[in-house]
Every structure is written in structure tokens, then in C-alpha cells.
């Protein structure tokens, strides 16, 4: 036993030596500038966009000197972010990574990202992007960009036109009308929608629309505010629908969820543009019966949309070829060729102003009764308020809020309680990471 212990001690000491050595090396590599590499380079890129191989092939065919190797994995919170964090720790991240807007601050706070605004080509491209998407990667700092905006998730109302018509229910334009419609839908034997208990992003989109602002960063410290009045209004609204059992609460992104839509049990979904793909793949039996309308409003006559999702293509700090990486990221997210492929393969909705006017977005979509659904989203994209800030530990904020939301839909506590608990836990998490936070 004593021998074992000494072996253990030796290895512990050896490791601590390696550990401290590695740390100093990390801090030395800071502030690399963005200069083109000489000679051919190979870039690695990790993402979960379906069909990305085709898009990358289009780039590789034309750029023999900048070859991109793509790796696909599960969606961000489903595992790829955890991989990125581990790779950061081990110092072997890919050159480029797919990171959603809400996770960018988490990667920046872990010192994992390269500021692509240092690359002149990116700085020049800034004006091509829809202002609020750029704001999501710059965190409000004009001189920085922690990724190239890829897509956005303006929200709208997907609804079953056939069922609403058959039961003589008007398409709700305000949240009040939506709640009233929920009663009628219930009377007709359905649920107006399914409330997302574990994917908090949907709720975040609702809060965003209502004017809730969960995080603020004044440069000195963070402010966490998951319980501001606007967010509370949204929480109480949905709590009321949950308590009256007017919405179903099957866990999102499961077969059960697909079934709720496929079996016509849920009649509407307030979701992002990429949700069009989710319904098409999850509820094939309902083809031709869905339509899209603008998101219900808190005040009659106003035109504010929420946003759910949207991603950036980020360059990791360890990349040896940031210039070429930025070049690829720009092509991927601004060129008509790439945007058309991304939309065709994965229903991604461009983050550039010109992109939203591309001809393929004016096409009618068969699944939605030949409605030109992207016109609704194009309008919504301009109605998203630009200044929503994400916190630096969203993985944990989402997990905490989701734990509470799950309890609330099971009848223990309310959504407001859940947010209050998540607020407290988020502040704790920030403190344990030594991130300055206002209490």
C-alpha cells in the first residue's frame, strides 16, 4: 500500500509540473495577429449542419491551397460544446467551430476564440450583416468579432390552417388572442402548442421579444437578470397556460414531440425559421396543412419578433491559420453559392442583408401549402431587437432553468420560481469561475 501511495504521489507531482508548464505557454500565445500564411494550408472545421460536406466540397474544389476538412458531431449543447471545451483544455481545437450566439460568450470567457475583426477581410465585411447578428458576435464592441455570423432564427407562428379554419378560430395576432384561442383549441380536443420544458432557448426567444434582457456587461462586471418584469410577464403568461392544461408539455426534440405534431395534437408552434425543417421531418403526415404567420404581439399593432438560435462560425485561438480560416468563414456565410447550399440542405437562414433577398428565399414551399414562408421570416428578421446579450456560462444557466421548468410542468413550483432559482445559481456559477458579477 505504501508503495502504491508513493507511485501516486510521484505521478501527481509530475502532472502538476506539466500542468503549470502548459498554463504559461497558453498565455504567451495571446494576441496573434491575422496574417495570411504562405503555402497551402489545411483547416479543420467542426459543425453539426446537416449536409455540410456538400458545401465544403464546393469550397475545396475551388481553393486547392486552402483545403477544409469537416468533422460533424452532435448539436452544441448535445455534446459538441463539451468537446470544444475539452479540446481547448488540451490545446487541440479545430481551426473553425460552429458556435451558437448564446454560447459565444462562454467560449470567449474561456479564452478560446480568435478575434476575427483583426483580419481586414472580416472588418470590411461587417456592413454586409444584419446589424443585430453582428452585435451577437461583437458583444457591442465595434472593434471585435468573435466569429462570423452564419444564420439567424427570427421567430414566427407556425399554425395548422386546416384545423383553425374547420373550428372557426381566428389566427391570433396578440398573445391575448393566442391564450383565448388556446381555450377553443382545447375544447376542440387539441393543444394550442407544446411548451418547451427543457430547451430554454424557446423561452429565451419569447423573453427577447417581450423586451427581457437577461445579462448585461458593463466592462467591470456582469449583471444577471433572469427575473426582470418583462421576463416575468412571459413566465406568468405561460405558467397560466400550463396550469390550465391548455398546452402539452412533452419533452422537446423527442419522438414523443414529433408525435404530438404528427398526430395533430399540437396545433401551433411559435418557432424560428429553422423550425420549418423540424416540422417537415417530424410531422410528415401534416404536409400541406401548415402556414406561417407573424409572431403574436404583446401590444396589438406592434411588430416585434423574437429570435431563437442562430450561429456563428468561430475561429479558435489555437488556429495557426486564422486568416485562411476567416476567409473560409466569410465565403461560407456571405457567398450566394454557400448560402443557397446551406438553405437547401439545412434550411439555414442567412445572417447577411443581401442573403435574405436571395432569389431562392422567394420560392413557395410545398410543405406549407406553397406559401412563401421565408417572406414572413424576412420581415421578422428586421423586427428582432438588436441588444440581447448572452451570459458567459449559458450551459449552466440553461441546465438550471430547465431543471426548474421541468419541475414546473410536473406541477412543482412555477416558471417564475424556476427563473429565480436559475438566477441565483447562475450568479453562483459566475462566482465560482471568478467572473465579476453584481449580486
Amino acid at each position, binding site marked *: 500500500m505504501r508503495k502504491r501511495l508513493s507511485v501516486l504521489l510521484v505521478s501527481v507531482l509530475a*502532472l502538476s509540473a506539466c500542468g503549470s508548464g502548459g*498554463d504559461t505557454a497558453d498565455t504567451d500565445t495571446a494576441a496573434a495577429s491575422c496574417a495570411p500564411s504562405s503555402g497551402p494550408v489545411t483547416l479543420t472545421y467542426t459543425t453539426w449542419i446537416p449536409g455540410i460536406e456538400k458545401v465544403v466540397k464546393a469550397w475545396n474544389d475551388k481553393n486547392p491551397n486552402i483545403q477544409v476538412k469537416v468533422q460533424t458531431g452532435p448539436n452544441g449543447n448535445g455534446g459538441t460544446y*463539451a468537446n470544444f471545451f475539452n479540446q481547448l483544455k488540451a490545446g487541440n481545437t479545430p481551426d473553425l467551430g460552429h458556435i451558437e450566439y448564446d454560447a459565444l460568450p462562454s467560449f470567449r470567457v474561456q479564452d478560446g476564440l480568435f478575434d476575427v475583426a483583426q483580419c481586414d477581410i472580416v472588418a470590411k465585411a461587417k456592413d454586409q450583416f444584419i446589424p443585430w447578428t453582428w452585435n451577437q458576435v461583437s458583444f457591442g464592441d465595434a472593434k471585435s468579432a468573435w466569429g462570423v455570423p452564419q444564420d439567424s432564427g427570427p421567430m414566427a407562428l407556425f399554425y395548422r390552417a386546416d384545423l383553425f379554419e374547420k373550428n372557426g378560430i381566428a389566427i391570433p395576432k396578440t398573445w391575448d388572442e393566442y391564450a383565448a384561442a388556446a381555450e377553443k383549441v382545447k375544447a376542440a380536443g387539441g393543444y394550442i402548442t407544446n411548451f418547451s420544458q427543457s430547451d430554454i432557448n424557446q423561452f429565451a426567444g419569447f423573453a427577447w421579444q417581450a423586451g427581457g434582457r437577461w445579462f448585461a456587461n458593463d*466592462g*467591470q462586471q456582469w449583471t444577471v437578470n433572469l427575473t426582470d418584469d418583462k421576463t416575468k410577464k412571459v413566465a406568468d403568461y405561460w405558467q397560466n397556460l400550463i396550469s390550465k392544461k391548455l398546452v402539452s408539455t412533452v419533452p422537446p426534440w423527442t419522438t414523443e414531440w414529433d*408525435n404530438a405534431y404528427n398526430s395533430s395534437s399540437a396545433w401551433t408552434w411559435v418557432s424560428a425559421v429553422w423550425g420549418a425543417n423540424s416540422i417537415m421531418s417530424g410531422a410528415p403526415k401534416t404536409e400541406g396543412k401548415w402556414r406561417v404567420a407573424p409572431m403574436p404581439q404583446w401590444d396589438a399593432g406592434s411588430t416585434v419578433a423574437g429570435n431563437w438560435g442562430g450561429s456563428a462560425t468561430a475561429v479558435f485561438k489555437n488556429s495557426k491559420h486564422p486568416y485562411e480560416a476567416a476567409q473560409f468563414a466569410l465565403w461560407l456565410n456571405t457567398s450566394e453559392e454557400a448560402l443557397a447550399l446551406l438553405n437547401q440542405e439545412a434550411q439555414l437562414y442567412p445572417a447577411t442583408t443581401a442573403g435574405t433577398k436571395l432569389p431562392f428565399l422567394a420560392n413557395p414551399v410545398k410543405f406549407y401549402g406553397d406559401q412563401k414562408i421565408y417572406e414572413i421570416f424576412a420581415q421578422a428578421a428586421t423586427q428582432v431587437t438588436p441588444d440581447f446579450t448572452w451570459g458567459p456560462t449559458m450551459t449552466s444557466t440553461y441546465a438550471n432553468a430547465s431543471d426548474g421548468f421541468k419541475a414546473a410542468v410536473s406541477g412543482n413550483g412555477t416558471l417564475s420560481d424556476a427563473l429565480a432559482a436559475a438566477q441565483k445559481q447562475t450568479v453562483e456559477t459566475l462566482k*465560482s469561475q471568478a467572473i465579476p458579477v453584481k449580486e
Partner: protein
Amino acid sequence: MTQILSTDIEAKPDETAAKPGRAVKYGWAVPFFVVPFGLLFVLFYLLPIGYAIVQSLYTVERTGTFGPAREVFGGLVQYQRVFENGPFWESIGRVLLFGVVQVPVMLGVALILALLLDSGLVKGRRFFRLAFFVPYAVPGVIAAIMWGFLYSPNLSPLKSVTSVVDLLSADFVLWAMANVVTWVYVGYNMLIIYSSLLAIPTEVYEAAKLDGAGAIRVAWSIKIPLVMPAIVLTTVFSIIGTLQLLAEPQVFRSFSSAVTSTYTPNLTVYSTSSIPNFPLAAAFSVVLALATFVLSFAFLKATQRGDR
């Protein structure tokens, strides 16, 4: 596994100590056989443990809202956080409750199945031995997904049951998972017990028969006491497995409203490391490992005392 080995070795320390010349006689044979194991043991066992311990002693410092993190030695700061973390200790309580119920049920079933196979009452012994073992060949995640569908209120083929009793609700989900774990591991444990039943010399049975013992009496007074070491072994494995529950709750998390991100200790570790807060996750792991060791050893000691 290791604790079993070490007790075996420690039981006869005098043998090696008494004959120091032995190692010379075998020359290179000893290192030849020991080095491959030793190397892997150090690389994949001691080093990761050592690394986790080192990690757990660090804490993060930074300046400004996006300042780069510096890992500095923090002593036992992370351990203090572990002990103040309510959900973590709740999750330990939860898996203990799980273990107290599930382990005896599973091993009881395994023992009965093993005794039935051994009794000669069953025809097609080889078939059943394989059939009971097959669930163990199903990867844990797949088993959990499969049972998740069976439990699902709207999709289950047993809808008449699941639409009345929501097996994925807070009241039942722990036991729904216990059922999955039992289903997977019962055959495995049965096999360990069964192979130890096969090792019992037939003379013992003959003697018992001559004394007029029936099949049940033989099972109760001879077979069970003689396979006790195998039962103890499987219990220790099960205690370890219970405290380490991860795959089932992780899968059920997406099906069930009742499974939170801190439902079991390992899920807490997983959630913490994906924040990412590696030092705190390491501290959770070390504490969990210690708790596992303490429980396994306590169980071993308690049963050994009973033997003597």
C-alpha cells in the same frame, strides 16, 4: 475489482516475503508479465486519478468580465464548494435509495435464476443461460432508449398502462430506471453466481442427499452459503455501479420531466464539466470516488466479519 485483488494478495504476504530469492530465479519473466499491466494501470488508472486530484486543488482567477482565466492553487476551496452543494448530496441520497432497493432485488433474482439453472429442473439450460445474459450485451444507452420508448405515455406499445401511470413522472422514474438497470445486469450477475455454483464439488451434494436433504434444503443450506463469496463480489460491483449511474439518467433526461441535470452524482460531474468548471468537476469526482471506496470497503469488511 482492484480491492478484491488487493485483499487476495494481502491475505498471503508471507509467501513472497519469506523467499526473496524467487524474483532472481525467474529473471526477466516477472517484469515481462507485470510491465504491460503496470504500464496500462499507470496510464489509464493512476495518472487520471492523480490528474483529477491535482485539478481539484486548483481554482480560477481572472480580472474583468472577459479576462483570461488563470488556474491558481486553491487548496481545498473546491471541496468546500462540494460540501456546500445541496443538489450533489441529494443525488448521493437518491442513488443510495436506488441501491438499497435495486441491488437486493437484482441479486435476488440473479440468485434464483442461477439456482434454477443449476437445479436440473429446467430443460434447455444452455439456451436459458444465454437468454438471460443477452440483455447485458445490449449497450446501456441503447437499453435506456429502448425502455424509454416502452415507458413513453403516448408511444408505448403498452399504452393502456403508460397512459394511466406515467412511469416517467417524478414518483416513478427512479424505479423505472431501476428496472432498466436490473434488466441489463441480472444475467451478468446470474452468470457469476452460476459459475460459482458449478464449482461446488458433487460429493457435497451426495453427502447432503444421504442425510436426506431435499432440493430446497440443499439450495438453502449448501449452495447459497457456498456461493456467498460470489454474491459478495456481485454486491460490491453493484454498489460501485449504482454510485456511478450515468447512462440511464442521461438518456432519461431527454424523455422525462423528473430527471434534472444533477439527478445522480455522475450527472452532476458531467454537467459541471460542461460549464466548463473542471476543478469543481474534479473535486466532485474525487469525493464520489472516496464515497464509493468507503461504501465498498465497509460492505466487504462487514461481510468478512460475518464469516469469521
